[in-house]
């Protein structure tokens, strides 16, 4: 942690200053673009940033990592003028600056691309980019000039984007590109990306990384915030790790390795991937899916999952993964096929399935997982009124005890029953949803992207909970786009492609590369074709 490399920036990532362009100031290509010194910030007496020193160079991808609440977003918000710092200094291109609001930040060439994109779906790429800043000729919008400007930007950065495409018709990756283009059109020199891949599939993410590489080579500074370690290794030239409002350390490219980073982030040593022993399979408890079909999304799907097993379902977004587990749960009405649990047919009614010990953690916890207005207690007990009431009357004492036990067992923080669930951090929201199901006597747990937007520490907690849960004899079926997660957690992985299973991997043969290849339709040695 001693390597606070304030001064040791190593030139520019790629200093081919060949094609000058007014969007990026390539002159400062080999210097520090932004430097923050001794930034200090308090909220109502709680220190959230303490003596933070931080810098981003031109032409580098600088990753910022840390658990939720480590102070990443506060730091970003101070840089972008959303908050003002209590103490400390900011320098842009060597000059001391004060950033009071977002406009100040924009004028200095600092642009943020947020998780929720800010494009208007009904407008085209060009219209979005020039929204509010339309080029006018004689009082009329000069559409031609605007379009040409966008086209030249696209060509310059080598984006695969149509300036006339309506945003609504574009995939998430392209939307993100349009968003980046918008930042560039306003002469961004530092682009801040907050979890940019959270809604992208693996292939789309790869495209985004290529875009980022291109930007770096043209001298732009990228500040990249992500929970996904693999992305950070892939992309970053330098990595700053934060914990508890402090900068824990800055790592250079060669120094970045998963173990070091995780340890720095959570402040303690975490168990590596190696300690996975063989798990016990309970042959007397099984889920059998036969010839399952669901409109055009699922075709003739067959598999069996056993108690004690975590079955990973891989594949690209849209390959039918989500539909598969929704059909099993009863949230989607299957059009054909049979599903059996322990040899007995599974109902199409969610209600009956829950009574039979099913649980489902949906992909989008805001839309389908959590009731944000209700408190943690109610969010936990919401699925268990059958056990907490008699003759429709809720047993208040049981209800409180049930919730308190779940909060304790699943380490939901802060441990306050009466807190609105919407105010918890992403990881604790997910623990709350998991607590909702694990507190019941569950026999089958269906999970869809269980750790999206969850920080590393909590992720490990969730993995531990799931493992324990499976070890106790339950069946766990988990859909995930996080390859590392599938490798780490699954006893077996089935990769889906176009509504069918494409390949099966068993423990020991599961690698990120082969999962990725299988998802894109390439068979590998490790896998078993299905």
């Amino acid at each position, binding site marked *: 942690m001693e390597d606070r490399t304030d001064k040791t920036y190593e030139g520019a990532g790629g200093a081919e200053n060949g094609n000058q362009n007014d969007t990026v100031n390539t002159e400062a290509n080999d210097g520090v673009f932004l430097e923050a010194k001794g930034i200090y910030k308090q*909220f*109502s*007496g*709680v220190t*959230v940033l303490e003596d933070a020193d931080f810098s981003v160079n031109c032409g580098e991808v600088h990753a910022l990592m840390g658990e939720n*609440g480590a102070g990443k977003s506060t730091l970003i918000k101070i840089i972008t003028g959303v908050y003002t710092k209590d103490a400390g200094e900011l320098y842009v291109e060597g000059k001391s600056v004060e950033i009071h609001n977002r406009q100040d930040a924009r004028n200095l060439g600092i642009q943020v691309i947020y998780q929720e994109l800010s494009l208007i779906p009904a407008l085209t790429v060009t219209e979005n980019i020039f929204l509010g800043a339309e080029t006018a000729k004689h009082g009329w919008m000069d559409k031609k000039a605007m379009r040409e400007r966008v086209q030249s930007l696209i060509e310059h950065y080598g984006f695969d984007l149509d300036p006339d495409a309506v945003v609504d018709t574009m995939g998430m990756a392209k939307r993100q590109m349009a968003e980046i283009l918008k930042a560039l059109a306003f002469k961004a020199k530092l682009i801040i990306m907050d979890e940019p891949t959270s809604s992208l599939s693996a292939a789309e993410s790869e495209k985004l990384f290529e875009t980022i590489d291109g930007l770096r080579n043209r001298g732009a500074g990228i500040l990249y915030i992500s929970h996904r370690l693999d992305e950070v290794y892939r992309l970053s030239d330098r990595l700053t790790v934060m914990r508890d409002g402090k900068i824990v350390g800055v790592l250079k490219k060669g120094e970045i390795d998963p173990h070091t980073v995780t340890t720095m982030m959570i402040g303690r040593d975490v168990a590596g991937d190696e300690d996975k022993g063989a798990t016990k399979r309970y042959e007397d408890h099984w889920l059998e899916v036969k010839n399952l079909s669901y409109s055009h999304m699922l075709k003739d799907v067959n598999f069996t999952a056993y108690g004690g097993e975590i079955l990973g379902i891989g594949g690209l977004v849209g390959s039918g993964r989500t539909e598969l587990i929704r059909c099993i*749960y009863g*949230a989607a009405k299957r059009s054909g096929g049979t599903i059996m649990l322990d040899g007995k047919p599974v109902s199409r*009614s*969610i*209600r009956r*399935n*829950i*009574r039979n010990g099913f649980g*489902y953690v*949906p992909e989008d916890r805001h*839309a*389908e*997982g*959590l*009731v*944000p*207005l*209700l408190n943690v207690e*109610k969010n936990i*007990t*919401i*699925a268990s*009124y059958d056990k907490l*009431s008699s003759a*429709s*009357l*809720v047993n*208040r004492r049981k209800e409180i005890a049930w919730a308190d036990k779940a909060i304790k067992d699943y380490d939901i*923080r*802060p*441990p*306050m029953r009466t*807190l*609105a669930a919407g*105010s*918890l951090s992403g990881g604790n929201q997910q623990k709350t949803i998991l607590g*909702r199901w694990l507190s019941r006597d569950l026999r089958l747990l269906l999970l869809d992207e269980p750790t999206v937007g969850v920080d590393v520490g909590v992720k490990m907690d969730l993995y531990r909970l799931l493992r324990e849960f499976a070890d106790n004899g339950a069946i766990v079926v988990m859909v995930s786009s996080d390859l590392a997660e599938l490798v780490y957690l699954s006893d077996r992985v089935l990769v889906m492609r176009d509504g069918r299973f494409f390949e099966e991997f068993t423990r020991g043969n599961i690698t990120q590369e082969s999962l990725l290849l299988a998802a894109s339709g390439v068979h590998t040695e490790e896998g078993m074709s299905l």
Partner: protein
Amino acid sequence: MMKKAIRAIGSAWGQRITLLVLICIVMAIAEPVFFKLDNYKSILLAIAVNGVMVCGMLFTVLVGGMDLSVGAMAGISASIAYRIAESSGFTTSGFLSGCALALALCLVAGAVSGLLVTRFALPAFVVTLAMKYIVYGSIYLVTQGFFVLPPAHGLSYQVGNQIVFSIPVGGGNKLNIPMPVIILIIVVAICAFVLVKTTYGRKLYAIGGNKNVANLVGIKSNANIVGAFMISGVLAGIAGIMLASMNGQAGQTTALNYEGNVLMAMVVGGVNLAGGEGGVAGAIFGALFVGIINNVMVLLSVEATIQTFVRGIVILAAMTLNMYARRGSTGAMKIKIAKADKAA
């Protein structure tokens, strides 16, 4: 200490009570009649009808809907009950069977609204607005445009010189509490019980908070929503019969446009019109507040047109205040979380 006091006043209930106290102080200076016992009685009688409707509409608002037909439902319920009572010569059994039929009809009308809202995914305010006109129009079929006037004797129960309720209740009660107020208390108690103690209440909050989640944990959202509209219909029906009894007449103007006051009570009482948030206590406070404002305006002989103006201002002010209170409480919540996190 100072900070604590400010925070208490800034909280939702702090604001409500502060406002009420302010009004009382102003009235103490401007119009001492405000503090007469008789005046309290008339405020209570006025909010009894509104309060029962508020309790009903609360169910629909909690699930993320709204019921704009409560006024019309009250009107038709009163008309049917009194029409049937009239045709039986105002016998007790005739009146009771009239009430039963009227409430059954309100139940059905509520169910129809609920089904339209759930099955066809129509916005509740459009459905119930249409229902308001349909029901209001059909009052004519029942009354032929006349008022049904029950005789002021025989069936009526009097407090002072006011005919309060025409269900025969025997010789009154010792405390001399008007019958409508007793009915309000009973309705409030039952609604609070249902919302707080039963699984049905829990489910309503869940549905209003996030219908997708409710469906995915096996709650039959649509059936429960239909139920909420039925409850709203029946309670509006009861309120209508109460109102007609107090006014001594039933017809097309009975409870006409009452939904405005009811909604206002809801907003003042901090019920989230988007669903999932609010309770009987707040809603009834809202009804009380609206009742007092109306009473104050009458006492101060504010012109009718100005009264309408003031009501509009009250709705906007209440919504703004609630928004501030909510923001304040989430802010306080965040600090609490940050502190707890630090401690952990």
